[in-house]
């Protein structure tokens, strides 16, 4: 009996919300959940820029709300439920760890649209997933790195050994090697997404190992600041443009630009055309942007990098095109073959030529 009663109350609550939303039809409410503070100047900051773009695009027709620093797991599920209850029409969950919570809450609120970043589960018709092909940007960075290194050693600061990071390391290395066969890559795993002091230490360790180009897949500008201390060492902006460090050490950057996607999806909710999708967009869609290449890079290298970016954008070239071998020497892609998205999404191996192992 008790169970019935509570369920009925829950249903009543839901009913109230949907009717409430129907009455306030003129305004669409879009909501975001961030894993870090918007002041992180990296991942969450860029998603928040997307929110601001939505506000700018639709003005009074849209209402926004967000919640920062939401831990993955139980707290995420509660925050999502609260958002759905309080009348959000579309909710963007911007971290991989929200995957199961997003699907669980989506089951209870069929009228609310859910958009989960970087995941792969779409268990209900009201859940879409979206991600960016960061590795496309990494390929361009790798080309610049391969051309610019004088010591033939490039360094990579990885956060955790997960597919997205492994893709980035492989894409950077393949393209550095392509323009400079003598190049080596040294990988340091920081085991954190965000710890500026540790990231700086990692960059320093790499520099002391003779590395003169640093790529980072952690979220702070600390590696760039560290690179600045040693003349001749360059690096790249990550997640946001980090233009303050231009023209050197920041010679270019890979920018997560979620704004076009957010504007499009919120628009789709407003005109009633929203449908479930799985978006994995890259340079071509403007979701991965290459920040301005500075004058510290010779003109011909800049032209080469820009040409690569253009051919990736147009779809003429895929950064993972065979012939490619895995680290152990076994064949992966035959001549001309292109990696499929499934393999990429679960990538857990290095390509041939990279020293060291992926922790596993």
């Amino acid at each position, binding site marked *: 009996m008790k169970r019935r009663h509570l369920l009925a109350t829950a249903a009543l609550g839901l009913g109230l919300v949907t009717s409430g939303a129907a009455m306030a039809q003129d305004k669409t409410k879009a909501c975001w959940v961030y894993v*870090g*503070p918007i*002041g*992180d*100047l990296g991942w969450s*900051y860029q998603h928040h820029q997307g929110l601001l773009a939505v506000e700018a695009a639709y003005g009074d027709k849209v209402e926004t709300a967000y919640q920062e620093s939401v831990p993955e797991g139980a707290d995420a599920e509660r925050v999502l439920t609260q958002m759905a209850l309080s009348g959000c029409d579309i909710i963007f969950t911007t971290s991989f760890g929200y995957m199961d919570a997003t699907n669980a809450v989506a089951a209870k609120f069929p009228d609310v649209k859910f958009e989960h970043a970087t995941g792969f589960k779409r268990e209900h018709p009201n859940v879409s997933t979206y991600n960016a092909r960061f590795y496309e940007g990494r390929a361009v960075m790798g080309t610049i790195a391969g051309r610019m290194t004088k010591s033939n050693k490039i*360094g990579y600061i990885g956060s955790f*050994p997960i597919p997205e990071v492994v893709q980035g390391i492989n894409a950077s290395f393949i393209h550095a090697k392509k323009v400079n066969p003598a190049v080596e890559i*040294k*990988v*340091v*795993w*920081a*085991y*954190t997404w*965000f*710890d*500026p*002091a*540790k990231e*700086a*230490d*990692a960059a*320093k*360790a*790499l520099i*002391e*190992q003779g*590395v003169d180009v640093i790529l980072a897949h952690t979220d*702070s*500008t*600390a590696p760039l*600041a560290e690179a600045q201390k040693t003349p001749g060492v360059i690096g790249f902006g990550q997640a946001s443009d980090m233009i*303050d460090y231009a023209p050197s050490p920041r010679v270019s950057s890979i920018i997560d630009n979620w704004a076009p996607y957010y504007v499009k999806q919120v628009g789709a909710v407003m005109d009633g055309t929203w449908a479930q999708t799985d978006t994995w967009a890259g340079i071509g869609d403007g979701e991965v942007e290459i920040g301005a290449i500075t004058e510290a890079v010779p003109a011909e290298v800049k032209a080469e990098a820009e040409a690569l970016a253009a051919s990736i954008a147009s779809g003429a070239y895929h950064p993972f095109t065979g012939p490619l071998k895995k680290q152990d020497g076994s064949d992966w892609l035959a001549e001309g073959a292109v990696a499929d998205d499934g393999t990429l999404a679960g990538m857990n191996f290095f390509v041939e030529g990279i*020293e*060291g192992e992926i*922790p596993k």
Partner: protein
Amino acid sequence: MMFGGIDPTLLIASLMVASVPIMLAAIGELVVEKAGVLNLGVEGMMIMGAVVGFVAAVKTGSPVLGFLGGAAGGACLALVFAFLTQFLLANQVATGLALTLFGLGLSSLIGQSFVGQRPPLTGDVPFGPLADLPVLGRILFQHDSLVYVSILAVAAVWAVLKFTRLGLILRAVGESHEAAHALGYKVRRIRVLAILFGGAMAGLGGAYLSLIRVPQWTDGITAGAGWIALAIVVFASWKPWRVLLGAYLFGGITVLQLNLQAAGAKIPVEYLSMSPYLITILVLVIMSSGRGKAALNAPASLGQNFHAAR
């Protein structure tokens, strides 16, 4: 000279820099604990120092004012702790933890409009020809001034505790506040001053992070350094020079593990990643079992509040 692909000269030079924030915060906390007060809010005071120091440096364009601001920021937060624990006799452990929570929140509010800005640069101390000495020059004479300040701070705390009347009073207060009170010392005043000193040093350590080590302001920039500083005081068994040792050991292993990774050492990354903590435990076990007294060195009144009956 290279060992396993790592240049020890560079390694030592790096660890001296990496250890500065935890060393400054730890030597401050050591004084606090010597006076018999346990302030677990080091992380909160550090991050307040980081943000206030950053704001001061950006606004004035002077790194020196930035560091003074950082120390002041840490001390201000410490003042809250001092008021609660010394005047209202609140529980020290809980107040310290609340201080960290409050500091993390407040620092983020203060820093909101400073995210992404860059502080004025702090240069290295010009030692002239000394800096060009082989090996020693790199290790000893090519650092920013705070590296030397941190070592001097350890030396000063050691000297004051050991040789001066002030040090004697401080220790007396920490060992037995009743006796110290009976002797006519102002227990509360001394403790408040010690707490403020601890806050200022933690703030200075935080400012080092935001002004030199990183250098920028982002939320949560201290990322747990305050907790490590607390652990180092215990590790040092409340002896100043061992704070230096502990900070260098911890900073050194942290830097070393990253260097080993960069040099391609064949040790699983996770074990390297947890090694600073495990080795710190190991060294403490050896120290405490060897002499048998290390853990007993804690000030006798540590964590107890004092209320003078008359």
